[in-house]
């Protein structure tokens, strides 16, 4: 009988330094993570390859439902609209639509995606500065909720209304001072300097479109709830004044997105979970501002939220594999993963938490994590404490659900597959890993460049 061999851990020796404790977020946690929603991670990697994005349907639904409850327990009329740019994989969008979310889009492409997913045009909010005439014609015909960003867009809508005799359903996007720096004043019309009133007066006086709402999106990853209180108060005041002046009730106030997720920003000393407002804090700030305003209680507007990252970050994980370990010229530990910044865009902002998938001892090393791209910028973590990893070992990068699967780039490597774990525990591919044809099919080589002799 042969003796069972012991698990091998790479031999390590670390100097004991009496320095400040590691920045939190650097710790990898003390236990390996071997499963997501009861599904073995190693099994998923052998079935679908590495790297691999994994989305948990159960986490999406749970996160959505708890956000919805946070608002509906405080304010009577609440509607979420899924921010497509945050993650527009159709399976993800449809999960939110099944939960009752409308769609919030910022381009003709996203608009078409929402329509193709089966969202009724009347439940699509169309934001953004780049709506073409063709986009607007479609949105107006479908009675979508058009949030006007600038005056040229207003005139284009007016023009279409006159040409078609249709009544566009519009809101304006308002930017304002909510005490945060930098102030997002590049989108929409300013509240303090009267731009917002200018365009409201135009809309109300020409009588060619229906002013149905007021919109603001004050920033993203907002680390305090107070600015939402200010924004909600200012939009409420506008609503009250519109009513006073034109005897017109708007139907909704849309406070956009921007709630922070549980990811920790680079440079933060404490983990986000300990410092950021909870969804209840945001809900309390917004609801109390609306209810305490001078809005007629018999005509409370619908509260719309376009929450993106806070609803999807936790549901996404990225699985990867160790390519090699090396040391830099000064002896510092470097680990190279098969996950590059081209598929993990958010590594530019976040210190993503990384956990090994296989068991490890309590020994840890300070490690710099590189991606596989042959480019100096390809750094996933500047410094993280991890147990010794071997070539071929797997890791999970947490909270990658927002913005990565939309901002990812095909660069040097092809983009990996995305799978979704259903509530029953089935694993379904929701986006195939790219093949070379996904790139080369769009290329054309002029005939005189087809051949060469080397």
């Amino acid at each position, binding site marked *: 009988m042969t003796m069972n*061999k*012991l*698990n*091998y*851990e*790479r*031999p*390590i*020796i*670390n*100097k*004991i330094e009496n320095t400040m404790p590691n920045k939190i977020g650097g710790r990898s946690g003390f236990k390996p993570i071997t499963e997501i929603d009861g599904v073995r991670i190693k099994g998923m990697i052998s079935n679908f390859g590495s790297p691999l994005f994994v989305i948990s349907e159960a986490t999406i639904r749970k996160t959505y439902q708890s956000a919805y409850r946070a608002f509906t327990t405080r304010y009577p009329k609440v509607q979420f609209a899924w921010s497509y740019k945050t993650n527009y994989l159709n399976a993800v969008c449809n999960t939110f639509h099944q939960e009752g979310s409308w769609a919030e889009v910022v381009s003709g492409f996203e608009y078409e995606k929402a329509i193709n997913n089966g969202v009724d045009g009347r439940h699509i909010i169309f934001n953004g500065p780049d709506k073409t005439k063709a986009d607007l014609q479609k949105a107006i015909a479908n009675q979508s909720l058009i949030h006007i960003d600038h005056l040229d867009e207003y005139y284009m809508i007016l023009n279409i209304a006159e040409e078609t005799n249709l009544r566009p359903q519009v809101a304006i996007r308002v930017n304002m001072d909510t005490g945060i720096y930098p102030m997002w004043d590049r989108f929409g019309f300013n509240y303090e300097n009267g731009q917002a009133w200018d365009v409201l007066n135009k809309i109300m006086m020409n009588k060619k479109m229906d002013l149905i709402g007021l919109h603001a999106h004050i920033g993203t990853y907002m680390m305090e709830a107070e600015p939402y209180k200010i924004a909600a108060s200012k939009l409420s005041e506008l609503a009250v004044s519109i009513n006073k002046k034109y005897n017109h009730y708007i139907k909704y106030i849309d406070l956009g997105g921007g709630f922070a997720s549980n990811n920790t920003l680079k440079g933060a000393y404490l983990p986000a979970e300990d410092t950021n407002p909870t969804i209840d804090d945001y809900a309390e700030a917004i609801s109390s501002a609306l209810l305490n305003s001078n809005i007629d209680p018999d005509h409370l507007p619908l509260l719309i939220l376009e929450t993106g990252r806070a609803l999807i970050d936790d549901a996404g994980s990225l699985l990867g594999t160790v390519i090699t*370990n090396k*040391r830099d010229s*000064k*002896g510092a530990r470097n680990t190279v993963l098969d996950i590059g910044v081209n598929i993990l865009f958010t590594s530019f902002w976040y210190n993503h938490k990384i956990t090994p998938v296989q068991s490890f*001892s309590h*020994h840890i090393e300070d490690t710099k994590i590189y991606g596989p791209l042959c480019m100096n910028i390809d750094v996933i973590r500047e410094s993280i404490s991890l147990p*010794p990893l*071997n*070539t071929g070992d797997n890791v999970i990068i947490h909270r990658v659900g927002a913005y990565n699967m939309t901002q990812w780039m095909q660069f040097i490597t092809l983009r990996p597959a995305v799978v979704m774990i259903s509530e029953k525990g089935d694993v379904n591919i929701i986006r195939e890993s790219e093949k070379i044809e996904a790139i080369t099919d769009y290329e054309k080589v002029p005939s005189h460049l087809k051949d060469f002799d080397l």
Partner: protein
Amino acid sequence: MEINKNIAVSDNGFLFNPATGESYNLNETGTELLKLIKENTPFEEISKIFLNKYETTAISFEKDFQDFVEILEQYKLTEKGNR
């Protein structure tokens, strides 16, 4: 390569270098490896011991051995590194 004579490693992986006052932590395999190196065990012998005992391959152990030795030198725990 030789480990400095006056260096002691405890069984639970604590190493103290009286020459510099610096201390170090080793994991289990690190402790075992350092002891073997300290006893001047040749690499081939060490490799055999590890391959018999642990779930690893000759190539990956050789790589890790190199890396470990490099860092001992970096930390000036070897006679060579101390020159």
